[in-house]
């Protein structure tokens, strides 16, 4: 019997193939299946509904354009789809002009909310997920830095500032943490 998650992933891979062939209904199917979570991830990184919606829209258009690049043997369709979304979100965060229209207090609130969301990501991982144990096995500073980067979308520089350490230290915490994670998960 195929586990539901695996079945869903096959459906997504199939939908990507149909997108590549020009079937708009397949893209609609991806939005229906993953849209709620895509919006959730975008909102967690951007903390604003309008920016999150824009990121998801951009993501769907990119999926449509790039569907032919997806190689099923390389990884999961879901991983590929969420990577596109994350990329859109990071673009918004890294593009200073996009955020400069926010009032300073809003910007501060946004950064605080991103910080908090990054901290909550680990607790929300299901107990059966190996990544959870592996993350718990890391030094707390390393673990936090990785979560700040992945869940919160913070840069090396921001992470160093948040953790009050020099840039080089933050970088090496992240790198060492990721090395250990790979070993733990392999």
């Amino acid at each position, binding site marked *: 019997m195929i586990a539901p998650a695996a079945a869903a992933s096959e459906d997504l891979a199939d939908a990507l193939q149909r997108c590549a062939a020009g079937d708009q209904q397949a893209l609609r199917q991806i939005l*229906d299946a993953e849209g709620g979570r895509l*919006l959730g991830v975008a909102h967690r990184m951007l903390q604003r509904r309008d920016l999150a919606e824009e990121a998801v829209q951009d993501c769907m258009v990119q999926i449509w354009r790039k569907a032919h690049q997806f*190689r099923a043997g390389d990884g999961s369709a879901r*991983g590929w789809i969420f990577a596109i979304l994350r990329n859109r979100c990071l673009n918004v965060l890294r593009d200073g002009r996009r955020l400069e229209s926010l009032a300073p207090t809003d910007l501060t609130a946004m950064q605080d909310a991103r910080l908090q969301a990054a901290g909550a990501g680990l607790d929300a991982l299901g107990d059966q997920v190996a990544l959870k144990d592996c993350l718990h096995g890391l030094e707390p500073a390393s673990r936090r830095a990785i979560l700040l980067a992945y869940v919160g979308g913070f840069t090396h520089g921001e992470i160093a500032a948040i953790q009050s350490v020099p840039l080089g230290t933050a970088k090496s915490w*992240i790198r060492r943490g990721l090395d250990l994670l790979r070993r733990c*998960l392999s």
Partner: protein
Amino acid sequence: MTQDTLDARADAFVLGLLDDAQEAEAEAALIADATWAAAVARARDRLLPLDMTAEEHPGAEALWEGIRARLAASQPIPLPAPNPVPTAANSPRRPGRMLPSGIAAAIGILAGAVLGGSWFAPEPVVIAVLLDNAGAPTAVVEDYGGADARIRFVNGVEVPQDRQMQVWTLPSAEMGPISLGLLTGTGTADLDAPRLPEPADGQLYEITLEPRGGSPTGRPTGAILAKGLAARQEGI
């Protein structure tokens, strides 16, 4: 590159921790380098469970109409007819040609026979179609090798008053991004490129918005307006 280095770089890429030039190179290599693409896919899947912890937000279906409206503009788009404005008398004219289908598919553009002309004129070594953030074609770079390259815009762009467009290419990771020159407008322009190694298939070209007068560091510092990968033209 050892497997470990490759995996470490893939992790950094997936976390969004590479700098702009490295990121552009890593992104470009996804299409050309299967080993790299596989390492990135593994890194994505390792961390994907964290995305699954985000709370689902309702209302995504309401985005569909907006998305659908943008799809029409995102199909492979034939390039428009050549710029009707007369170019300089000595400007090279080139025979019609097609981009190789694999690469055209990879960048989502079918560059049609738009470059009519005589047989003996110089031919570009590579052509790169530069796409904006939303994937729409913005400009076409034709690089003839040596120090001879030209850019042609196929779509309007918005340049803030205090910014100027600068064109870059990435001949290799070691050389880093090299300026091909500043643009004063969106007309067809011959680029003031330095002498570089012969342009290669898959080489990155991009336009960034820099302070007027050009990047103060000699490397791209501003937002990327459009970027694309070169398709080699020989034997087509």
